[in-house]
């Protein structure tokens, strides 16, 4: 954490208001999804965010990606503030080139009418000034780097397995050449054996490109495998953060201890 952080989040807060009009005037129900989160991600680092369902993990990810607007607090990626929605096309492109996201469900996160190659190519068209021929070469390069063969690269999502689809989604994110990738439960919908393959692929990509990951998951085993540091969220609050081994092996907060105990240990029935 000596270099300037690529992601700098300060007192991030998200409150959902569900206003219903009752007989005695409007009633306001407030739900605090994220209650003042402050954290940084260093260049090339993998920060894991863990917590149960409803702890605010995904909301944090969506705010970083610009899919939700923070109620309060600031988000800055590579020194660019993104607490407000992008107003101009140039601003949108810049943000897309800085941070990309891989979603949980590979069955719905790809356009069903677009082949893998077209999906990657569309990102290249937006983020690079390559010619058509150069783009075709780059598409092949990226597809190969995520382990898609020729047939898979020309296939529609319906012709691919879940793991292959997630490779396409990762390739699409890589095509923008981002410095940060937010992985929102990116392996949770996959079989265990496929999970391992995708996790190894992600680790290889990080080694090769130096991209930073914000790795959001409920699976502590996955976090232990991937993350340098980990951040534990509970009901929108950060209850603990630190190096992965320290937080997971010697948790200080009772919630982290409970999270850890709820995972069946190896060898126990």
């Amino acid at each position, binding site marked *: 954490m000596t270099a300037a952080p690529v992601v700098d989040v300060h007192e991030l807060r998200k409150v959902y208001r569900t206003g219903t009009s009752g007989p005695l005037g409007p009633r306001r129900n407030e739900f605090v999804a994220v209650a003042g989160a402050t954290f940084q991600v260093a260049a090339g680092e993998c920060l894991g965010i863990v917590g149960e369902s409803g702890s*605010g*993990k995904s909301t944090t990810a969506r705010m970083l990606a610009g899919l939700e607007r923070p109620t309060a607090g600031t988000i800055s990626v590579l020194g660019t503030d993104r607490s407000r929605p992008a107003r101009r096309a140039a601003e949108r492109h810049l*943000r897309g080139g800085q941070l990309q996201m891989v*979603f949980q469900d590979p069955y719905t996160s790809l356009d069903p009418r677009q082949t893998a190659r077209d999906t990657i190519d569309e990102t290249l068209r937006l*983020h690079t000034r390559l010619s058509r021929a150069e783009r075709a070469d780059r598409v092949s390069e990226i597809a190969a780097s995520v382990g898609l*063969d020729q047939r898979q690269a020309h296939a529609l999502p319906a012709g691919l397995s879940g793991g292959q689809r997630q490779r396409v989604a990762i390739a699409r994110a890589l095509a923008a050449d981002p410095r940060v990738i937010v992985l929102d439960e990116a392996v949770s919908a996959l079989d265990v054996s496929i999970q391992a393959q995708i996790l190894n692929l992600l680790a290889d990509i990080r080694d090769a490109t130096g991209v930073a990951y914000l790795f959001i998951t409920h699976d502590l085993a996955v976090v232990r495998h991937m993350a340098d540091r980990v951040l534990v969220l509970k009901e929108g609050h950060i209850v603990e953060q630190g190096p992965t081994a320290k937080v997971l092996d010697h948790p200080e907060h009772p919630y982290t201890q409970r999270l850890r105990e709820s995972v069946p240990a190896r060898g126990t029935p």
Partner: protein
Amino acid sequence: MTLTQPSLTAVESAPSRANAAGRRLRNRLGATGLVALCWIALMIGCAALAPVIAPHDPNAQDLLHVYAAPGGDHLLGTDGTGRDILSRLIWGARTSLVGPALVVLLSLVVGLPLALAAAWRGGWLDAVVGRFLDIVFSLPAILVAVLAVAVFRPGPAPAILALAVAYLPYVARVARSAALRQRAMPYVAALTVQGHGGVAICARHLLPNITPVVGAQIPIAFANALMDLAALSFLGLAVQSPQADWGVLVNDAQAVLQGHSSQVVYAGVLIIATVVALMLIGDRLGGDIRRRRVRRAPQPTGRTP
């Protein structure tokens, strides 16, 4: 994990792709649907080739041979002024099909952008567009057309424009709800994160993905427009006699329904058969989409908020 099937080649050849498209169409339409499609193709063929295949000039009168019996030079006989009924039916296919086609085309050109904009923006725009479509939907198409004809003049153009407005909700409501469903999909969120603009996402991704749903609606809207235009022509408010049109043909011969009913029957059968065929095709296409949605529906997603 990569269960590569050796039989699957990387790029399918063009003919095999065309065969696959034909097979898909057959599966979607079924046997009756295919018959209906053939009938529509026949009607479109007649309309397109009317100058070539019609045996006589549809407007040439022959007062020496009025109400000629079928057979001989006049396959379906002649009407009260000696015009060849078959030729008038064939030429009538033109006006009877072009009218509804224009209605559907116009309502698509206006309705699709409206629906996509409403679904994409949401908020007040969606509310305004949604209410507007509901209001138009509540107006009977014929009534709108009669009003337009009363304000402007009787003729095909005002009737077609009025029907295009009245049919806007048929296309736009379906397109809007389909677009809303697509908009909620994570792939749209992914495109947003990439930095694509709303117009690009709507045109390149939402529009192709709502096409099957909207496409199923088109034959049904076409059939209704055909019926409405035929009714308006029958009333003398759209296509005017002596121009050949199925609705006009029914009207022309209704005075002599007793005794010389054949022209009314021929024109009526053509209208009914075409409308039923279109409805059937629309129903098959729509039913196929519903079936596929049911099959795809149960998808386990352990999404956390």
